């Protein structure tokens, strides 16, 4: 909590002192190396029961301090090396991104990136950080922890149903016996490792990637000898409307677990992602929406069992309106649902494999300076399961970037 308090101590800085902070990236003499940063701090009430906002980063997205340092070195106009080093409330320091960007032909708007690269799927996945996110919270699809774990598997459907609404610390009989968080449908905080290509024109944007993990399970080190194929195509209309479709397929279960549990022929162990996104930006308005259908192949051999992959649908719509130069209002409505499975629990009735969640959030923001923003808001969550089924959370956030 101390880092959060330290972050909010910045709020006590007089405006004139805050104005002395840099608002441009720092660069060397010839401009080939640049350094940027983002400092964010969020506070909200403690949530040690419902865990609505906990992330695969092991902390509450509404109660954390974070420092991001981003660097770019461009030894050649067509080649650059980019990195992000991140430190968070839990004091861990992580190299969250490290990749090379190469533009083979200077006049073509075509780039290849290799290393620990940003995801190509979806729209929110590349703007999960404070400045690009108009609200304090992260969309459920990218943050909410489901009960699935890559390193531990249920032996029966009942094992899975027992973990409904317990994505913060699900445990299963097969695989790892240590406590660990479950998986979000798509990880917004960890990036996958591989190679990707991107081409854009005035009205079309195409990207494709081959990486090591899965949307929910980005990795640096190989965990299952599987590959993820992902891509996105988007059209941009001059009216300010952008629409995209995305798809991905990758192995999400660790090999160490699959070795413990031989998979029957025809049983999928992959995660598939199909998504649509749309954005409208005009004047002082930004409206964005995203919908995704995600399936997880899950081998469960003991009765009671099931054969179809576990499915989940998630979607959100958000809007931001800016007024009087310094003020903005933003709101997001979202829903996360899960397909039904049938075990012996719940009277043998068809039951969603994890508890569906709905969320509403609103935020008001004020720009103290061009690169310093204060936000206050309120988030309300509903869940059809778990000990806490409704939770309202007031939030405050401080952001500074250069």
């Amino acid at each position: 909590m101390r880092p959060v308090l330290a972050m909010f101590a910045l709020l006590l800085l007089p405006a004139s002192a805050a104005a002395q902070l840099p608002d441009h990236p720092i660069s060397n003499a010839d401009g080939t190396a640049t350094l940027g940063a983002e400092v964010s701090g969020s506070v909200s009430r403690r949530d040690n029961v419902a865990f609505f906002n906990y992330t695969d980063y092991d902390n509450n997205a509404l109660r954390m301090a974070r420092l991001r340092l981003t660097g770019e070195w461009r030894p050649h106009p067509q080649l650059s090396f980019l990195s992000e080093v991140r430190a968070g409330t839990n004091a861990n320091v992580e190299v969250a991104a490290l990749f090379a960007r190469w533009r083979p032909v200077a006049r073509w708007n075509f780039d290849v990136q290799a290393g620990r690269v940003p995801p190509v799927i979806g729209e929110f996945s590349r703007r999960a950080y404070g400045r690009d996110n108009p609200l304090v919270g992260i969309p459920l699809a990218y943050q909410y922890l489901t009960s699935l774990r890559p390193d531990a598997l249920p032996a029966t459907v009942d094992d899975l149903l027992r973990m409904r609404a317990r994505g913060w610390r699900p445990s299963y009989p097969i695989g790892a016996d240590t406590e660990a968080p479950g998986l979000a449908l798509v990880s917004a905080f960890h990036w996958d490792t591989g190679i990707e290509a991107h081409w854009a024109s005035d009205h079309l944007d195409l990207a494709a990637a081959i990486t090591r993990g899965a949307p929910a399970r980005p990795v640096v080190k190989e965990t299952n000898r599987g590959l993820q194929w992902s891509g996105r195509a988007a059209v941009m209309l001059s009216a300010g409307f952008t629409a995209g479709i995305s798809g991905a397929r990758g192995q999400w279960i660790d090999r160490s677990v699959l070795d413990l549990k031989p998979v029957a022929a025809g049983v999928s162990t992959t995660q598939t992602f199909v998504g649509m996104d749309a954005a409208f930006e005009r004047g002082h308005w930004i409206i964005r929406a995203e919908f995704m259908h995600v399936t997880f192949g899950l081998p469960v051999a003991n009765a009671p069992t099931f054969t179809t992959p576990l499915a989940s649908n998630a979607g959100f719509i958000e809007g931001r309106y800016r007024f009087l130069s310094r003020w903005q209002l933003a709101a997001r409505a979202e829903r996360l649902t899960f397909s039904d499975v049938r075990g012996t629990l719940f009277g043998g009735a068809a039951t969603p494999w994890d508890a569906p969640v709905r969320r509403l959030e609103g935020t008001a923001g004020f720009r103290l300076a061009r690169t310093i923003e204060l936000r206050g808001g309120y988030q309300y969550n509903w869940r059809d399961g778990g000990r806490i089924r409704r939770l309202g959370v007031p939030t405050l956030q401080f952001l500074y970037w250069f």
Partner: protein
Amino acid sequence: MRRGLIVPVLACLAAATALAATPYARADFKAGNVRGHVQQPAATPRDAHRPSVTGLGQTAHAPIDRSHAVVYIDAAPRQAFDALPAGRVRLDQRNQTFEPHLLAITVGTTVDFPNDDPIFHNVMSLARGNAFDLGRYPRGRSRSVRFDTPGIVPVVCDIHAHMSAYILVFSHPFFAITDDEGRFAIPNIPAGTYTLKVWSELGSADAKRITIADGTTLDVDFEVSQR
């Protein structure tokens, strides 16, 4: 941030208005000229992109020309305010750069901000007294702002952080932007004694006390040293 510089310059620009209320010693309008040269330090690449780690490719933009400076007198006689040349000027958005990078205008001037890029831009400033936010608009569209308060207006694009420009708004017409060689000329300054100053993004220069005599042209040179 440039507040440390902006505040004193703002004060000078405001002082021009205050002094205008003071009766000027000369009843007739005799005028002279001042011209000279501003030596600037080498520009540093402050227009560097914020590292685009979340991006899927390069974004290219034209380099920013920061070599120009504005030379101005910090207070003007009353008759300077009788007929200010308030008109319309353009500040284009082209190749993810504002063109020109530096504008100097009188109060009451309207600045048009046409977008010539194939992408959206969002021109804005949080300058005290001249804050505005034009929102996002596409290629071929233009939005305008009328500037009624003297001061320095840092202009940015809220979407593209590497885009920046400065507009200096004066309450009198006695200012000039240096040309590509650093030369400037301010004509028809009413005879009298003034303080001549330089505003430069690259540094600062000592102000100079000058006396303008009727029908004469005064040569004044400045050397801007890097901050």
